[in-house]
Protein backbone atom coordinates (compact mmCIF):
# COMPACT_ATOMS: atom_id res chain seq x y z
CA UNK A 1 0.00 0.00 0.00
CA UNK A 2 1.39 3.41 -0.96
CA UNK A 3 1.97 5.95 1.77
CA UNK A 4 1.23 9.63 1.30
CA UNK A 5 4.93 10.30 0.86
CA UNK A 6 5.17 7.69 -1.88
CA UNK A 7 2.23 9.26 -3.70
CA UNK A 8 3.88 12.65 -3.40
CA UNK A 9 7.07 11.23 -4.84
CA UNK A 10 5.21 9.77 -7.80
CA UNK A 11 3.54 13.11 -8.38
CA UNK A 12 6.82 14.95 -8.00
CA UNK A 13 8.47 13.16 -10.87
CA UNK A 14 5.55 13.89 -13.17
CA UNK A 15 6.05 17.59 -12.48
CA UNK A 16 9.78 17.68 -13.09
CA UNK A 17 11.06 20.17 -15.67
CA UNK A 18 11.05 19.24 -19.32
CA UNK A 19 14.20 18.99 -21.43
CA UNK A 20 14.80 21.92 -23.77
CA UNK A 21 13.55 21.09 -27.30
CA UNK A 22 16.91 21.90 -28.89
CA UNK A 23 18.65 19.49 -26.51
CA UNK A 24 16.33 16.76 -27.72
CA UNK A 25 17.05 17.59 -31.34
CA UNK A 26 20.79 17.43 -30.77
CA UNK A 27 20.53 14.20 -28.80
CA UNK A 28 18.34 12.66 -31.50
CA UNK A 29 20.85 13.49 -34.24
CA UNK A 30 23.74 12.14 -32.15
CA UNK A 31 21.79 8.97 -31.33
CA UNK A 32 20.89 8.36 -34.95
CA UNK A 33 24.55 8.85 -35.85
CA UNK A 34 25.41 6.08 -33.38
CA UNK A 35 22.80 3.76 -34.89
CA UNK A 36 23.94 0.84 -37.01
CA UNK A 37 24.06 1.80 -40.71
CA UNK A 38 20.69 1.86 -42.39
CA UNK A 39 19.88 -0.81 -44.91
CA UNK A 40 17.99 1.59 -47.10
CA UNK A 41 19.65 2.94 -50.24
CA UNK A 42 21.72 6.04 -49.61
CA UNK A 43 20.69 9.17 -51.39
CA UNK A 44 24.01 10.04 -52.90
CA UNK A 45 24.31 13.54 -54.25
CA UNK A 46 27.40 13.21 -56.35
CA UNK A 47 27.54 16.79 -57.54
CA UNK A 48 27.00 18.14 -54.05
CA UNK A 49 29.61 15.80 -52.66
CA UNK A 50 32.24 16.91 -55.13
CA UNK A 51 31.39 20.59 -54.75
CA UNK A 52 31.50 20.40 -50.97
CA UNK A 53 34.77 18.48 -50.98
CA UNK A 54 36.30 20.97 -53.40
CA UNK A 55 35.13 23.89 -51.27
CA UNK A 56 36.56 22.19 -48.20
CA UNK A 57 39.94 21.71 -49.83
CA UNK A 58 40.11 25.28 -51.17
CA UNK A 59 39.20 26.79 -47.83
CA UNK A 60 41.50 24.51 -45.95
CA UNK A 61 44.41 25.47 -48.19
CA UNK A 62 43.55 29.15 -47.74
CA UNK A 63 43.62 28.66 -44.05
CA UNK A 64 47.18 27.36 -44.38
CA UNK A 65 48.35 26.04 -41.07
CA UNK A 66 44.88 25.66 -39.68
CA UNK A 67 45.10 22.24 -41.22
CA UNK A 68 47.19 20.11 -38.89
CA UNK A 69 48.94 16.86 -39.72
CA UNK A 70 46.66 15.96 -42.58
CA UNK A 71 43.40 16.59 -40.74
CA UNK A 72 41.39 19.41 -42.26
CA UNK A 73 38.83 21.47 -40.39
CA UNK A 74 36.60 23.88 -42.22
CA UNK A 75 33.76 26.02 -40.97
CA UNK A 76 31.40 27.47 -43.54
CA UNK A 77 29.15 30.44 -42.97
CA UNK A 78 25.51 30.53 -42.11
CA UNK A 79 24.25 30.13 -45.69
CA UNK A 80 22.09 27.03 -45.97
CA UNK A 81 23.85 23.98 -47.36
CA UNK A 82 22.24 20.91 -48.91
CA UNK A 83 21.07 18.96 -45.89
CA UNK A 84 22.05 15.55 -47.27
CA UNK A 85 25.29 16.47 -48.96
CA UNK A 86 28.17 14.14 -48.16
CA UNK A 87 31.94 14.40 -48.17
CA UNK A 88 34.67 12.63 -49.99
CA UNK A 89 38.17 12.44 -48.62
CA UNK A 90 40.68 14.63 -50.46
CA UNK A 91 43.78 12.81 -51.66
CA UNK A 92 46.45 12.66 -48.98
CA UNK A 93 44.19 13.76 -46.12
CA UNK A 94 43.50 11.66 -43.04
CA UNK A 95 40.08 13.17 -42.66
CA UNK A 96 37.83 16.12 -43.30
CA UNK A 97 35.46 17.78 -40.86
CA UNK A 98 33.10 20.44 -42.12
CA UNK A 99 30.63 22.45 -40.06
CA UNK A 100 28.09 23.94 -42.42
CA UNK A 101 25.01 25.74 -41.16
CA UNK A 102 25.57 24.27 -37.70
CA UNK A 103 25.76 20.67 -38.96
CA UNK A 104 28.88 18.56 -38.79
CA UNK A 105 29.97 16.20 -41.53
CA UNK A 106 33.07 14.09 -41.02
CA UNK A 107 34.80 11.50 -43.12
CA UNK A 108 38.12 9.87 -42.27
CA UNK A 109 40.46 7.41 -43.88
CA UNK A 110 39.69 4.92 -41.10
CA UNK A 111 36.10 4.78 -42.30
CA UNK A 112 34.52 7.07 -39.75
CA UNK A 113 31.60 8.84 -41.40
CA UNK A 114 29.26 11.19 -39.64
CA UNK A 115 26.72 13.43 -41.26
CA UNK A 116 24.37 16.16 -40.15
CA UNK A 117 25.14 16.18 -36.41
CA UNK A 118 24.12 19.57 -34.95
CA UNK A 119 27.22 21.09 -33.36
CA UNK A 120 28.49 24.50 -32.41
CA UNK A 121 32.10 23.77 -33.44
CA UNK A 122 34.27 20.79 -34.30
CA UNK A 123 37.86 19.72 -34.93
CA UNK A 124 39.52 16.49 -35.91
CA UNK A 125 42.42 15.05 -33.95
CA UNK A 126 45.77 15.23 -35.79
CA UNK A 127 45.44 11.81 -37.39
CA UNK A 128 41.66 12.05 -37.66
CA UNK A 129 41.16 9.26 -35.14
CA UNK A 130 38.77 11.37 -33.06
CA UNK A 131 36.58 14.38 -33.57
CA UNK A 132 36.00 16.91 -30.81
CA UNK A 133 32.72 18.78 -31.10
CA UNK A 134 30.70 21.31 -29.18
CA UNK A 135 27.34 19.66 -28.57
CA UNK A 136 24.83 21.62 -26.54
CA UNK A 137 26.80 22.84 -23.54
CA UNK A 138 29.48 20.19 -23.65
CA UNK A 139 32.76 19.44 -25.36
CA UNK A 140 32.48 15.90 -26.68
CA UNK A 141 35.15 13.65 -28.18
CA UNK A 142 33.81 10.96 -30.45
CA UNK A 143 35.68 7.79 -31.27
CA UNK A 144 35.91 6.41 -34.80
CA UNK A 145 32.83 4.24 -34.29
CA UNK A 146 30.75 7.34 -33.57
CA UNK A 147 30.45 6.71 -29.85
CA UNK A 148 31.52 9.24 -27.28
CA UNK A 149 35.01 8.75 -25.93
CA UNK A 150 34.40 11.39 -23.30
CA UNK A 151 32.48 14.59 -22.71
CA UNK A 152 32.92 17.51 -20.35
CA UNK A 153 30.22 20.03 -19.47
CA UNK A 154 30.96 23.65 -20.41
CA UNK A 155 29.61 26.98 -19.15
CA UNK A 156 27.97 27.54 -22.53
CA UNK A 157 28.19 26.54 -26.19
CA UNK A 158 31.67 25.75 -27.46
CA UNK A 159 32.34 28.09 -30.38
CA UNK A 160 35.86 27.12 -31.48
CA UNK A 161 38.07 24.07 -31.05
CA UNK A 162 41.69 23.38 -31.95
CA UNK A 163 43.42 20.06 -31.38
CA UNK A 164 47.18 20.28 -30.70
CA UNK A 165 49.37 18.69 -33.40
CA UNK A 166 50.59 16.02 -30.95
CA UNK A 167 47.02 15.23 -29.97
CA UNK A 168 47.79 15.67 -26.29
CA UNK A 169 45.83 18.92 -25.77
CA UNK A 170 42.67 20.56 -27.05
CA UNK A 171 42.09 24.30 -26.90
CA UNK A 172 38.49 25.44 -27.01
CA UNK A 173 36.54 28.67 -26.63
CA UNK A 174 33.28 28.73 -24.69
CA UNK A 175 30.55 31.34 -25.04
CA UNK A 176 29.92 31.94 -21.35
CA UNK A 177 27.12 34.45 -21.95
CA UNK A 178 28.71 37.85 -21.54
CA UNK A 179 32.23 36.76 -22.57
CA UNK A 180 34.22 34.08 -24.35
CA UNK A 181 36.53 31.91 -22.26
CA UNK A 182 39.55 29.97 -23.54
CA UNK A 183 40.19 26.52 -22.07
CA UNK A 184 42.84 23.88 -22.63
CA UNK A 185 42.04 20.26 -21.80
CA UNK A 186 44.09 17.11 -22.16
CA UNK A 187 43.32 14.93 -25.15
CA UNK A 188 41.80 12.29 -22.88
CA UNK A 189 39.23 14.73 -21.51
CA UNK A 190 40.91 15.37 -18.15
CA UNK A 191 42.70 18.34 -16.56
CA UNK A 192 40.49 21.06 -18.00
CA UNK A 193 42.00 24.50 -17.32
CA UNK A 194 40.96 28.07 -18.07
CA UNK A 195 43.70 29.93 -19.95
CA UNK A 196 42.02 33.30 -20.51
CA UNK A 197 38.64 34.50 -19.30
CA UNK A 198 38.17 37.15 -22.01
CA UNK A 199 38.97 36.22 -25.59
CA UNK A 200 37.45 36.60 -29.05
CA UNK A 201 35.48 33.78 -30.62
CA UNK A 202 38.33 32.94 -32.97
CA UNK A 203 39.73 29.43 -33.33
CA UNK A 204 43.07 29.25 -31.43
CA UNK A 205 46.14 27.98 -33.27
CA UNK A 206 48.72 25.56 -31.91
CA UNK A 207 52.39 25.88 -32.72
CA UNK A 208 53.83 22.77 -34.38
CA UNK A 209 55.54 21.60 -31.18
CA UNK A 210 52.23 21.75 -29.25
CA UNK A 211 53.92 23.84 -26.57
CA UNK A 212 52.46 27.23 -27.52
CA UNK A 213 49.01 28.41 -28.40
CA UNK A 214 48.02 31.59 -30.24
CA UNK A 215 44.61 33.15 -29.74
CA UNK A 216 42.85 36.48 -30.14
CA UNK A 217 42.33 38.28 -26.84
CA UNK A 218 39.27 40.32 -25.94
CA UNK A 219 40.88 43.51 -27.25
CA UNK A 220 41.56 41.94 -30.61
CA UNK A 221 45.28 41.49 -29.93
CA UNK A 222 46.92 38.19 -30.73
CA UNK A 223 48.31 36.50 -27.64
CA UNK A 224 50.66 33.55 -27.44
CA UNK A 225 50.32 31.28 -24.42
CA UNK A 226 53.40 29.26 -23.59
CA UNK A 227 52.37 25.96 -21.99
CA UNK A 228 55.87 25.19 -20.74
CA UNK A 229 56.04 28.30 -18.61
CA UNK A 230 52.31 29.07 -18.30
CA UNK A 231 52.92 32.62 -19.56
CA UNK A 232 50.98 34.92 -21.88
CA UNK A 233 52.70 37.23 -24.40
CA UNK A 234 51.08 39.58 -26.87
CA UNK A 235 52.43 39.51 -30.39
CA UNK A 236 53.47 43.09 -31.28
CA UNK A 237 53.18 42.82 -35.03
CA UNK A 238 49.81 41.14 -35.08
CA UNK A 239 48.59 42.94 -32.00
CA UNK A 240 49.10 46.34 -33.61
CA UNK A 241 47.24 45.25 -36.68
CA UNK A 242 44.50 43.39 -34.79
CA UNK A 243 42.57 40.66 -36.48
CA UNK A 244 39.38 40.37 -34.49
CA UNK A 245 37.40 38.30 -36.93
CA UNK A 246 40.19 36.60 -38.82
CA UNK A 247 41.75 33.20 -38.43
CA UNK A 248 45.21 32.81 -36.98
CA UNK A 249 47.64 30.01 -37.62
CA UNK A 250 51.27 28.98 -37.48
CA UNK A 251 53.06 28.31 -40.73
CA UNK A 252 53.86 24.62 -40.85
CA UNK A 253 57.27 23.78 -39.43
CA UNK A 254 58.20 27.41 -38.78
CA UNK A 255 57.81 29.88 -35.90
CA UNK A 256 55.79 32.18 -38.15
CA UNK A 257 52.38 33.25 -36.98
CA UNK A 258 49.86 34.33 -39.56
CA UNK A 259 46.76 36.41 -39.28
CA UNK A 260 44.45 35.41 -42.09
CA UNK A 261 41.30 37.02 -43.37
CA UNK A 262 38.97 35.19 -45.70
CA UNK A 263 40.26 37.04 -48.77
CA UNK A 264 44.01 37.02 -48.23
CA UNK A 265 46.89 36.52 -45.86
CA UNK A 266 47.15 39.87 -44.12
CA UNK A 267 50.31 39.62 -42.15
CA UNK A 268 52.97 37.28 -40.99
CA UNK A 269 55.05 37.68 -37.89
CA UNK A 270 58.07 35.66 -36.94
CA UNK A 271 57.95 34.36 -33.40
Amino acid sequence: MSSELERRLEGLFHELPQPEPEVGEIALAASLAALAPSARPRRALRAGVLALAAAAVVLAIAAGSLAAAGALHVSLGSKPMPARAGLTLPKGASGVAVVANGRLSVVTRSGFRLQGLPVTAAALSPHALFVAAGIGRSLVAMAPNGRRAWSVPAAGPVVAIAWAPYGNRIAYVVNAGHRFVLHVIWGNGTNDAVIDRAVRAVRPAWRGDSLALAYVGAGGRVVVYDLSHATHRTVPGLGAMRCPHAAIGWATGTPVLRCIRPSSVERQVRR
Partner: protein
Amino acid sequence: MRRARRGDRDAAAELFRRYWRDAWRAAFAITGRRALADDVAADGFERAFAALGRFDDRRPFGPWLHRIVANRALDILRTERRLAGDEPPDLPDLSPEHGAGDRSLLTAVADLPLERRVAVVLRYGVGMTPKQIAETLDVPVGTVNSRLARALEQLRESLEVEHVE
Protein backbone atom coordinates in the same frame (compact mmCIF):
# COMPACT_ATOMS: atom_id res chain seq x y z
CA MET B 1 11.63 -1.86 -32.24
CA ARG B 2 12.53 -4.48 -34.85
CA ARG B 3 12.76 -1.84 -37.56
CA ALA B 4 14.98 0.30 -35.40
CA ARG B 5 17.22 -2.68 -34.75
CA ARG B 6 17.60 -3.16 -38.49
CA GLY B 7 18.87 0.42 -38.76
CA ASP B 8 15.62 2.13 -39.79
CA ARG B 9 16.27 5.75 -38.80
CA ASP B 10 12.60 6.74 -38.80
CA ALA B 11 11.74 3.91 -36.42
CA ALA B 12 14.72 4.78 -34.24
CA ALA B 13 13.65 8.43 -34.18
CA GLU B 14 10.16 7.34 -33.08
CA LEU B 15 11.71 5.23 -30.33
CA PHE B 16 13.76 8.24 -29.25
CA ARG B 17 10.73 10.55 -29.11
CA ARG B 18 8.77 8.03 -27.07
CA TYR B 19 11.44 7.64 -24.36
CA TRP B 20 13.51 10.84 -24.46
CA ARG B 21 11.51 12.87 -21.94
CA ASP B 22 11.36 10.10 -19.33
CA ALA B 23 15.05 9.32 -19.74
CA TRP B 24 15.93 13.00 -19.36
CA ARG B 25 13.74 13.37 -16.30
CA ALA B 26 15.32 10.32 -14.70
CA ALA B 27 18.75 11.80 -15.40
CA PHE B 28 17.65 15.15 -14.00
CA ALA B 29 16.19 13.60 -10.87
CA ILE B 30 19.41 11.69 -10.22
CA THR B 31 21.88 14.47 -11.05
CA GLY B 32 19.77 17.49 -10.05
CA ARG B 33 21.29 19.57 -12.85
CA ARG B 34 19.95 20.38 -16.26
CA ALA B 35 23.28 20.48 -18.05
CA LEU B 36 24.28 17.13 -16.60
CA ALA B 37 20.87 15.64 -17.39
CA ASP B 38 21.24 16.79 -21.01
CA ASP B 39 24.57 15.06 -21.23
CA VAL B 40 23.62 11.87 -19.38
CA ALA B 41 20.35 11.32 -21.25
CA ALA B 42 21.94 12.01 -24.64
CA ASP B 43 24.86 9.75 -23.85
CA GLY B 44 22.46 7.04 -22.64
CA PHE B 45 20.56 7.13 -25.92
CA GLU B 46 23.75 7.08 -27.98
CA ARG B 47 24.97 4.03 -26.10
CA ALA B 48 21.58 2.35 -26.37
CA PHE B 49 21.32 2.99 -30.11
CA ALA B 50 24.90 1.86 -30.69
CA ALA B 51 24.07 -1.41 -28.93
CA LEU B 52 20.59 -1.81 -30.43
CA GLY B 53 21.75 -4.65 -32.67
CA ARG B 54 22.51 -6.74 -29.58
CA PHE B 55 19.26 -5.87 -27.76
CA ASP B 56 16.75 -8.69 -27.21
CA ASP B 57 13.56 -7.15 -28.63
CA ARG B 58 11.35 -9.53 -26.64
CA ARG B 59 12.25 -7.40 -23.62
CA PRO B 60 10.95 -3.87 -23.03
CA PHE B 61 13.20 -1.06 -24.24
CA GLY B 62 12.39 1.40 -21.42
CA PRO B 63 13.96 -0.44 -18.47
CA TRP B 64 17.03 -1.23 -20.56
CA LEU B 65 17.43 2.41 -21.51
CA HIS B 66 16.89 3.59 -17.94
CA ARG B 67 19.47 1.12 -16.77
CA ILE B 68 22.01 2.70 -19.11
CA VAL B 69 21.00 6.24 -18.10
CA ALA B 70 21.04 5.48 -14.38
CA ASN B 71 24.42 3.80 -14.51
CA ARG B 72 25.87 6.62 -16.62
CA ALA B 73 24.58 9.20 -14.12
CA LEU B 74 26.05 7.17 -11.26
CA ASP B 75 29.42 6.95 -12.98
CA ILE B 76 29.56 10.70 -13.54
CA LEU B 77 28.42 11.61 -10.04
CA ARG B 78 30.81 9.16 -8.41
CA THR B 79 33.68 10.60 -10.45
CA GLU B 80 32.59 14.10 -9.51
CA ARG B 81 32.35 13.15 -5.84
CA ARG B 82 35.81 11.61 -5.95
CA LEU B 83 37.21 14.79 -7.49
CA ALA B 84 35.29 17.21 -5.28
CA GLY B 85 35.75 15.37 -1.98
CA ASP B 86 32.96 15.87 0.54
CA GLU B 87 31.52 19.05 -0.89
CA PRO B 88 27.74 19.12 -0.63
CA PRO B 89 25.84 18.59 -3.90
CA ASP B 90 24.38 21.54 -5.79
CA LEU B 91 20.73 22.22 -5.24
CA PRO B 92 18.61 20.99 -8.14
CA ASP B 93 17.89 23.42 -10.98
CA LEU B 94 14.21 24.16 -10.48
CA SER B 95 11.94 26.01 -12.83
CA PRO B 96 9.81 28.79 -11.36
CA GLU B 97 6.58 26.84 -11.78
CA HIS B 98 7.50 24.49 -8.96
CA GLY B 99 5.52 25.20 -5.84
CA ALA B 100 7.01 25.34 -2.36
CA GLY B 101 5.85 21.80 -1.51
CA ASP B 102 7.44 20.25 -4.56
CA ARG B 103 10.57 22.28 -4.07
CA SER B 104 11.05 21.06 -0.51
CA LEU B 105 10.47 17.44 -1.50
CA LEU B 106 12.79 17.71 -4.50
CA THR B 107 15.47 19.34 -2.37
CA ALA B 108 15.06 16.54 0.19
CA VAL B 109 15.46 13.95 -2.58
CA ALA B 110 18.59 15.77 -3.82
CA ASP B 111 20.01 15.58 -0.28
CA LEU B 112 19.70 11.78 -0.18
CA PRO B 113 22.91 9.78 -0.48
CA LEU B 114 23.53 8.91 -4.12
CA GLU B 115 22.58 5.21 -3.96
CA ARG B 116 19.32 5.92 -2.11
CA ARG B 117 18.47 8.77 -4.48
CA VAL B 118 18.91 6.52 -7.50
CA ALA B 119 16.70 3.84 -5.94
CA VAL B 120 13.99 6.43 -5.24
CA VAL B 121 14.16 7.84 -8.77
CA LEU B 122 13.96 4.42 -10.39
CA ARG B 123 11.13 3.30 -8.10
CA TYR B 124 8.89 6.37 -8.02
CA GLY B 125 10.06 8.31 -11.05
CA VAL B 126 10.57 5.56 -13.60
CA GLY B 127 8.15 3.10 -12.01
CA MET B 128 10.51 0.13 -11.79
CA THR B 129 9.88 -2.71 -9.36
CA PRO B 130 12.52 -3.45 -6.70
CA LYS B 131 13.49 -6.53 -8.71
CA GLN B 132 14.05 -4.44 -11.86
CA ILE B 133 16.04 -1.89 -9.86
CA ALA B 134 18.16 -4.70 -8.43
CA GLU B 135 18.92 -5.92 -11.96
CA THR B 136 19.65 -2.38 -13.12
CA LEU B 137 22.10 -1.63 -10.32
CA ASP B 138 23.42 -5.17 -10.08
CA VAL B 139 22.66 -5.47 -6.35
CA PRO B 140 20.43 -7.89 -4.38
CA VAL B 141 16.70 -7.10 -4.11
CA GLY B 142 17.10 -6.90 -0.34
CA THR B 143 19.62 -4.09 -0.76
CA VAL B 144 17.18 -2.18 -2.96
CA ASN B 145 14.36 -2.59 -0.44
CA SER B 146 16.66 -1.48 2.33
CA ARG B 147 17.78 1.61 0.40
CA LEU B 148 14.18 2.51 -0.40
CA ALA B 149 13.05 2.10 3.21
CA ARG B 150 15.92 4.21 4.52
CA ALA B 151 15.37 6.82 1.85
CA LEU B 152 11.69 7.16 2.76
CA GLU B 153 12.59 7.38 6.41
CA GLN B 154 15.17 10.12 5.70
CA LEU B 155 12.71 12.02 3.49
CA ARG B 156 10.03 11.92 6.20
CA GLU B 157 12.53 13.25 8.71
CA SER B 158 13.69 16.02 6.37
CA LEU B 159 10.14 17.13 5.61
CA GLU B 160 9.17 17.00 9.28
CA VAL B 161 12.12 19.13 10.29
CA GLU B 162 11.26 21.66 7.62
CA HIS B 163 7.64 21.67 8.72
CA VAL B 164 8.60 22.36 12.31
CA GLU B 165 11.06 25.09 11.35
